[in-house]
């Protein structure tokens, strides 16, 4: 199981029946593959749809039916389409129960950076700032480190996406919860030692007496 699958599987265990969920482009999209059995969630695509699966049957792609990454999708029975103002009324208004976003950095205060690297790369924030401001829970799904540079840092060196604290950070090594006291290590990936998690983090983590192994919902 590669890093991305570990992350996606663990994030999927945060889903609860009946939730409206927004998955960011890239890694977060994988979460849809691992929705736990017996749980039914609705996915929102911020370009204007609730209720879809990806990809559509081969040869049945419709140019007017894509996700926020531009990929073809299929609408499910019960799907609803709407314009961008309505889509972000859903997001900003707290109607999205959970948003899963990738990140370049998260810092000790739980702030996220994911939309620009000054002087290098400025794709833009798209819907990320609204999602972090408005979704009931925001889960960061990211690899623990990038090119051996920690992505969990004491203070963001990249421009923040929001002043709001995210709810949970899931990496291929650990589940970490930002709290008033700081970043608390909640779970470690199967076979991963606490020391390894701390070594890969650029910020102090609070380590409870017990750090259980994360479930990956494989049973």
């Amino acid at each position, binding site marked *: 199981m590669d890093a991305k699958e570990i992350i996606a599987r663990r994030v999927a265990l945060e889903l609860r029946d009946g939730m409206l969920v927004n998955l960011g482009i890239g890694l977060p999209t994988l979460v849809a593959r691992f929705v736990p059995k017996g749980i039914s969630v609705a996915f929102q*695509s*911020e*370009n*204007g*749809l609730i209720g879809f699966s990806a990809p559509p049957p081969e040869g049945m792609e*419709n*140019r*007017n*039916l*894509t*996700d*926020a*990454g*531009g990929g073809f999708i299929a*609408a499910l029975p019960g799907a609803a*389409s*709407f*314009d*961008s*103002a309505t*889509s*972000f009324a859903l*997001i*900003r208004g707290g109607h999205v129960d959970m948003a899963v976003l990738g990140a370049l950095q998260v810092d000790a205060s739980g702030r996220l950076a994911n939309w620009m690297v000054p002087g290098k*790369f*400025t*794709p*833009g*924030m*798209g*819907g*990320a*700032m*609204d999602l972090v*401001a*408005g979704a009931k829970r925001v889960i960061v799904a990211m690899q623990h480190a990038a090119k051996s540079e920690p992505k969990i840092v004491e203070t963001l060196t990249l*421009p*923040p*996406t*929001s*002043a*709001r604290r995210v709810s949970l950070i899931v990496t291929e090594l650990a589940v970490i919860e930002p709290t008033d006291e700081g970043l608390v290590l909640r779970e470690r990936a199967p076979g991963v030692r606490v020391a390894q998690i701390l070594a890969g983090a650029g910020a102090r983590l609070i380590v409870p007496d017990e750090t259980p192994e994360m479930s990956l919902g494989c049973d």
Partner: protein
Amino acid sequence: MRKSAITAEAAAALIPDGASLMIGGFLGVGSPDRLIDALVSRGARELTIIGNDTAYPTIGVGRLIEAGCVARVRASHIGTNPTTQRLMSAGAIDVELIPQGTLAERIRAGGAGLGGVLTPTGVGTIVARGKQVVEIDGEIYLIEKPLRADFALLRAHEADYCGNLTYRLTAANFNPIMAFAADCVIVEPDEIVPTGVIPPDAVRTPGVLVTHLIGRPR
């Protein structure tokens, strides 16, 4: 209130160099492709483009960027178009990045006669720079001002002879709100149908907002 149908070329001739344009679409989905091509053919220059993104170099708004028609962009995302990024880095295009929900609300405010909206989005980020901040009941909000444009170039699914519009699935996106926010609204529908074919409850943009319809290509 019948509209007359004009060609994409005639529409492009109405749009002067230097004009500000809202263009519907999300990564090219729901963008008025024939209007965009007509602007490229006419060699339009110094346009200001307001829209979600600049799509890809060969698709949607990206074709205007690629052809050198654009001086300014206001969008939420340009990551899919390396040309926009290159021209921005070179200082050849002025890009203002706006959170997608804020962009939608600013356009809606521009069309709805509001002086602006108060949003929590962007508080504590670069987006807040130079903006008025207000506290309402203990929460901090940015005042985001309305956006309007000289022209809105929209893609619709059906238009009837009165200009009433429908949209298809995710091709609606910014089109319905842009219809309120420009002095001249030019719509490229997939199909034009007789008045009465679109029932009142299916109309998503009332025809009174539409200035011109692009007709069937000759």
